[in-house]
């Protein structure tokens, strides 16, 4: 074992009486990538900030952090400031708040350069342009004079990385660097991080909740739970033979893009509140729990670099079980065959005017949020609607739910055209279509007890009181909560439970179509698995149809029967999940699929990745011809004659073969 560059031993962080980090040991060697993975509240970000001494004064930091043998904990701020940025640099999650909005990007990078190495302004500026070029920002000279808000999220994160590597640091700390980004942009930024690491030879500490990102980037992984490292191992070893039941559950809880891995494994319960547990903090959720787990917290032990904090680690190492062999997996009854069509959307269009002026508003442009969307859902079927931010997924949903005449196109719900609905028709459709929102905290009235929240759609439908009283306990039980929970308020529940309440509310009036707007993206993976399993069970039991909107392709793959891919307000590809995921026809779909990281380091390394160039264009511009052509990897390789067609003609959705349920809107699919 070579000497460590950064050595963290027995690091503790307490906020008042609440311990956030409880004795973390980490070692980072020169040039390697250490992934720290954990769910929210596990202490991974606090650990990263503690290394840099960036925690607020209220935090009491104990233990030791050594950089090349030099102790950093307790160092005065002035000394630390010399190390920050020059030897250890940080890439934050939200690059918009990490840049000062009123200074130009160039000035901020120049400042970072000149603070640590006094040099002329012109020289620093030249170096800054080089750095921007290195991280793949086009026209770096011009970009230097841009303000942070003029950059897109991906560009800002690149600039952030450029600033971090400005002084050739020994260690790059990246705290959830891609969490706020779309998958194709995430792939670009991860690629830039790899480049940056290669150019500077720095060690990379990558903090993430995403097992896929970790699997693709890290050499070694530390899994954190409740403020401690519970397992650490080389990446292949960790994913192939996890020794801690938590790691095992986490791996089983992630839906996989390649469709392997069987049913999702929900880890029951939620992480304990900090400072409340004696013994192993995972004991309450662990399927392998024994009496001795509850008395003493196991130490992090093991051999050949694979350490785990579990008394039964040896057993798990020897047996190497699959997650579903250890965790109880609720049986998901097989879904029935899809029935008749209940929703058909054709050529839906929605535009928003761009207005300027305060007193006299004049229209200066148009946002084509939805620009020709086709959807169809049959009873008992799940349609996944996939797209990156700005692709018009949410606008499509809200147009559906508005139950009015669309700007253009046609929406047929349960055989009724929404353009000509009377009062009774609207009322009936308001019952038949229910929605579950992304953020379960925002979508439940904080001042209403859960019973009233669930009763709301019933009251809106003027259901008799006796029926409402009968239905509430039934619904709560159906989503895995207790009838006694009806008199509690939303803030007394965890995120996963709140989403279950949301689902119960939507189910109250026995809808036929459930619209799910990113229902699990605000949840941690272990909780997400439970909610996804619940959705699958409900669908099978109640014969519901789902319109499932998500940016997470793995979730769609796991749950949906059919999938529809959106780009810039257009439906670019649609078909059954198997056909779209196994043999994508549209270049965008192919790029999207290749950008999704797999939680499997071996498979992840074997993949070839299609990196898309640039960002999606602004929906205010409406490119002629194919909306995707500016970023298209196929278009770039075509000869001029064939390119002209992409530039002039809008591609229409065409089936792969007559009668096959697999459409793609591309002139040269399968090319």
């Amino acid at each position: 074992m070579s000497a460590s560059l950064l050595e963290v031993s027995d690091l503790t962080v307490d906020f008042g009486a609440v311990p956030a980090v409880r004795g973390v040991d980490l070692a980072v060697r020169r040039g390697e990538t250490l992934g720290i993975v954990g769910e929210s509240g596990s202490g991974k970000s606090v650990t990263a900030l503690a290394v840099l001494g960036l925690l607020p004064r209220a935090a009491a930091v104990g233990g030791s952090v050594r950089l090349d043998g030099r102790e950093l904990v307790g160092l005065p701020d002035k000394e630390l400031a010399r190390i920050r940025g020059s030897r250890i640099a940080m890439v934050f999650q939200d690059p918009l708040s990490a840049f000062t909005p009123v200074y130009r990007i160039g000035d901020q990078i120049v400042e970072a350069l000149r603070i640590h190495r006094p040099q002329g302004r012109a020289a620093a500026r030249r170096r800054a342009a080089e750095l921007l070029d290195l991280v793949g920002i086009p026209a770096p000279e011009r970009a230097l004079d841009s303000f942070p808000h003029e950059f897109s999220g991906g560009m800002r994160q690149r600039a952030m990385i450029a600033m971090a590597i400005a002084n050739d640091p020994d260690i790059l700390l990246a705290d959830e660097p891609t969490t706020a980004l779309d998958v194709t942009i995430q792939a670009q930024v991860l690629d830039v991080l790899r480049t940056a690491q290669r150019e500077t030879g720095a060690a990379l500490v990558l903090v993430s909740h995403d097992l896929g990102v970790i699997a693709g980037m890290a050499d070694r992984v530390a899994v954190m739970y409740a403020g401690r490292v519970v397992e650490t191992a080389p990446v292949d070893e960790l994913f192939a033979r996890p020794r801690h039941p938590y790691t095992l559950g986490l791996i089983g809880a992630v839906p996989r893009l390649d469709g392997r891995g069987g049913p999702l494994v929900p880890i029951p319960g939620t992480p304990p509140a900090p400072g409340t547990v004696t013994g192993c903090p995972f004991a309450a959720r662990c399927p392998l729990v024994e009496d001795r787990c509850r008395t003493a917290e196991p130490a992090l032990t093991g051999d050949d670099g694979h350490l785990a904090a579990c008394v039964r680690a040896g057993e798990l190492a020897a047996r190497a079980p699959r997650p579903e062999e250890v965790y109880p997996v609720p049986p998901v009854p097989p879904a029935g065959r899809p029935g008749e069509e209940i929703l058909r959307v054709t050529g839906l269009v929605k535009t928003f005017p761009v207005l300027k002026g305060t007193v006299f508003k004049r229209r200066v442009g148009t946002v084509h949020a939805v620009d020709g969307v086709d959807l169809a859902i049959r009873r008992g079927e799940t349609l996944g609607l996939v797209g990156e931010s700005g692709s018009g997924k949410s606008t499509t949903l809200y147009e559906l739910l508005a139950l009015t005449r669309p700007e253009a196109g046609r929406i047929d719900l349960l055989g009724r055209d929404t353009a000509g609905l009377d009062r009774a028709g609207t009322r009936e459709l308001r019952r038949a279509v229910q929605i579950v929102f992304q953020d379960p905290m925002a979508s439940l009235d904080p001042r209403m007890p859960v019973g009233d929240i669930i009763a709301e759609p019933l009251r809106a439908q003027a259901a008799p009181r006796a029926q409402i009283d009968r239905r509430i306990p039934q619904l709560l039980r159906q989503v895995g909560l207790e009838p006694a929970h009806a008199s509690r308020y939303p803030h007394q529940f965890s995120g996963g439970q709140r989403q279950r309440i949301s689902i119960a509310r939507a189910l109250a009036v026995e809808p036929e179509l459930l619209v799910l707007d990113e229902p699990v993206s605000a949840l941690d993976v272990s909780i997400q698995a439970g909610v996804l399993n619940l959705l699958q069970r409900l669908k099978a039991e109640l014969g519901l149809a789902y319109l499932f909107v998500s940016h997470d392709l793995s979730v769609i793959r796991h749950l949906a029967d059919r999938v529809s891919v959106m780009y810039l307000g257009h439906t670019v590809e649609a078909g059954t999940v198997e056909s779209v995921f196994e043999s994508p026809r549209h270049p965008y779909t192919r790029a999207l699929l290749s950008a999704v990281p797999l939680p499997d380091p071996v498979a992840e390394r074997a993949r070839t990745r299609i990196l898309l160039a640039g960002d999606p264009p602004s929906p205010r511009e409406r490119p002629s011809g194919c909306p995707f052509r500016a970023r298209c990897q196929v278009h770039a390789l075509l000869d001029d004659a064939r390119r002209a067609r992409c530039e002039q003609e809008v591609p229409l959705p065409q089936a792969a073969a007559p009668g096959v349920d697999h459409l793609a809107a591309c002139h040269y699919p399968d090319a």
Partner: protein
Amino acid sequence: MTAVLDTAPAEPKSPAAPGRGRLVLTRLLAARGATAGAVIVLLLFLLAFAGPYLTPWDYATPNYTAIRQPPSAEHWFGTNGIGQDVFAQTVRGLQKSLVIGLLVALLSTLLAGLVGACAGYFGGWADRALMFLVDLLLIFPSFLIIAIVSPKLKGAGWLAFVLLLALFNWMITARVVRSMTLSLREREFVRAARYMGVAPFRIILRHILPNVSSFLIIDATVTVGGAVMSETALSYFGFGVRPPDVSLGTLLAAGTDQAPVFPWLFYFAAGLLVLFVLAINLIGDGLRDALDPTSDRSTP
């Protein structure tokens, strides 16, 4: 969480879960401050309406043989410059002020909540029209209008006076409620209710108003004291409550300059007013905590 899976329950008849109204009431009753406040207000009402029967003296009849007497067994709160019994006057004034304070606060807060929430929720023309009305009333010199109108209302009595006071007291609150509603309207739970087909006015009543209730309650408790005092100002100029009738406000106005020498003319009325406002504040705090589920750690 996944253990309970049976969906066809042969469940025992479980009692229906208490709704929001019941929960808030239980929480309100459990709050000691609110109960104390309510008891004080009740006692004040009792004093105000039973008080006149306890004393042989009339609030209006002067008694020139007993001028500016300090409190004694005969005149409990003493007498004033023309020998009227201060206790009789105070309880008579308390009757007026209790009713005026409570009604004005209730009416103006209700009006402010409704107008503000409607303007914010509906937006567009409704918003513009309502806000025009608010601005119009704000720039009207309310004092002048009340002064002009109140002689005409002489026959209508104090209820008309209450209406007038309430009418000129709600505008700023309504503006605040409107801006709070504008942000609430975009919250997902409101949107969810809309997509469920809940009628707009029901959304305002069930979602918007409870979520601005903390502000409204604080505002209402402040208004109670304010209404009593503004009634004073009007009475001082001869509008509103006219002599020989009295209110706490007129008593205070009359007693202020004599307070150092003849404290009983001022401090009894002032003490009762302070007690009243304090009690209202206690009730308001209790109500606010009862409506806000995050206000305490203990669950009901």
